[in-house]
């Protein structure tokens, strides 16, 4: 079964964030960029679906600048068959991103479109369900596992207080969480093969962003706390502080 996995290039989640001059973006110098961690789960899910079905192609799709080619190559090295870069500037307006992706997805119309449940940078958790809405496709979010069964896909999704099992007609859009999709590593052979796989670069159809970042700020400093003591004997003082000072109990 063919699938398209929408991925995003983001700063390493272990990286320190430094706000750049102008205060509307972050410094990218010296920062390692990676495929958003949840997108790795989505890619793994697509690769397994292909392997289990015994046929089909996995295509990775991203919106971004030329540096995203590196991220797409990394996905090809892990096992994706083809890649598409929509050149354009990513903003915080997820709907603008969703429209650009949806326009491209319409031309391919794969039975499965997969997203990471959220991006590792702005973490808005919105582009997947927006794309589904724009395409008029059913969508399950926060999917921890799924099984394709004929013309349907049965998903186990993380819902409040438990797991919801939902069946969707194909074609469908899923947003993937970690669940059972521990990502594989690229092999040396995979890295070599990736260089010969198709990577299509085209301009994105981007609508104007309807969200503007006016300013980035560092999180407020927390007031200096205190060590109330050592070992279990410190517990009564802690509980007193929580009750009387912090009013937290």
């Amino acid at each position, binding site marked *: 079964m063919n699938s398209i996995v929408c991925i995003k290039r983001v700063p390493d*989640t272990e990286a*320190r*964030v430094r706000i750049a001059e102008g205060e509307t973006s972050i410094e990218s110098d010296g920062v390692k960029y990676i495929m958003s961690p949840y997108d790795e789960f989505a890619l793994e899910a697509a690769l397994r679906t292909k392997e289990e079905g015994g046929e089909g192609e996995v295509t990775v799709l991203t919106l971004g600048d030329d540096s995203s080619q590196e991220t797409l190559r990394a996905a090809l090295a892990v096992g994706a068959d083809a890649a598409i870069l929509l050149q354009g500037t990513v903003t*915080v307006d*997820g*709907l*603008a991103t*969703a429209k650009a992706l949806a326009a491209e997805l319409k031309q391919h119309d794969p039975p499965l479109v997969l997203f990471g449940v959220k991006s*590792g*940078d*702005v*973490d*808005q*958790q*919105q*582009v*997947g*369900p*927006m794309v589904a*809405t*724009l395409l008029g*496709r*059913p969508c399950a*979010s*926060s999917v*921890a596992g799924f099984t394709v069964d004929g013309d349907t896909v*049965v998903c186990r999704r993380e*819902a*409040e207080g*438990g797991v*919801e*099992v*939902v069946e*969707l*007609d194909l074609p*469908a859009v899923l947003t993937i*969480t970690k669940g059972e999709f521990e990502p594989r590593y690229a092999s040396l052979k995979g890295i070599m093969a990736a260089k010969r796989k198709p990577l299509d670069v085209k301009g994105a159809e981007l609508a104007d*962003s*309807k*969200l503007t970042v*006016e*300013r*980035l700020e560092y*999180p407020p400093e*927390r*007031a200096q*706390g*205190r*060590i109330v*003591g050592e*070992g*279990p004997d*410190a*517990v009564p003082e*802690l*509980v007193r502080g*929580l*009750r009387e000072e912090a009013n*937290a*109990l």
Partner: protein
Amino acid sequence: MGDILAFAEQKDGEIRGVAAEVVSVAASRAGELGGQAHAVVLGGAGIGEGADGLGAYGAEIVRVAESESLVTYNPEVYATVVAEIARSGNYDAVLFPATALCKDLAPRVAALLDSALASDITQLEVDEGELVAVRPVYGGKAFARIRFQCSPAVMSLRPNVFGVVESPASGVVEVVTPSIEDSGRSRVIEFQASRSGSVDVSEASIVVSGGRGMRGAEHWVLLEALRDALGPDAALGASRAVVDAGWRPHGEQVGQTGKTVAPKLYFAIGISGAIQHLAGMRTAQTIVAVNKDADAPIFGVADYGIVGDVFEVLPRLTQEISDSRSE
């Protein structure tokens, strides 16, 4: 102009506590803009009874959509109905709580309204007659001040951050009969309640998180005991190391690659405090850390710290909190 619509989430036929917070925010900001707060409730027959209670938090009108098709959450149906109600007024903004359900619903509504969505916001101000939202980015390592170039602006509010304010308004209930179009392409087959069955870590007002210092999944009974002692609003969390080791499910992970949380009270037990974990919980109101290493970074953000062996401190802590709560 200036009206704001608040989505009042229900579960099992009861309007949830988070609704009061979202309506409160809608009422105060609409007041500053010179408009009114309205609430919208979706559910089965009878859901409108008691919906006037949202008036206590400032809702002038409560729009209630009643239908058998709305008893449980169906994404496409819910999105269509909320968007229809949002279009029926002249709203500057539509607010959702950033609950598990609304994280799925809000993007769909925004797409139907052709409006941008700011998710999981932690502040909402009115500046020169415009709404300005603040939300964490990069897992909480920075905060972005955001303006909207669309109407209505759609937002989801991080639970527990804004607080509930009582400001009596009329709370007139208007029952609407929505047009339901269910494509039937998405069908819920079953729901498997988790054994803990409790509140999600991202919505809990108290979070008890364990790290590698807990030394193994079998020791989580100690954290469960502390959670239980703290009452029904407490939930378990976990560090990334613990989830990667397979000790706890990913749904409990707190941090940039898990969930960002802002509870009233956060316990970090045996967690050293990796940067991506700190980013995900540093907006908690009060942070307690227990760790054997006095130099652990977690003590840098903790309001209260105990240096010591978690296996000695935890039972005592659970006991003292139990005693304190039963007084």
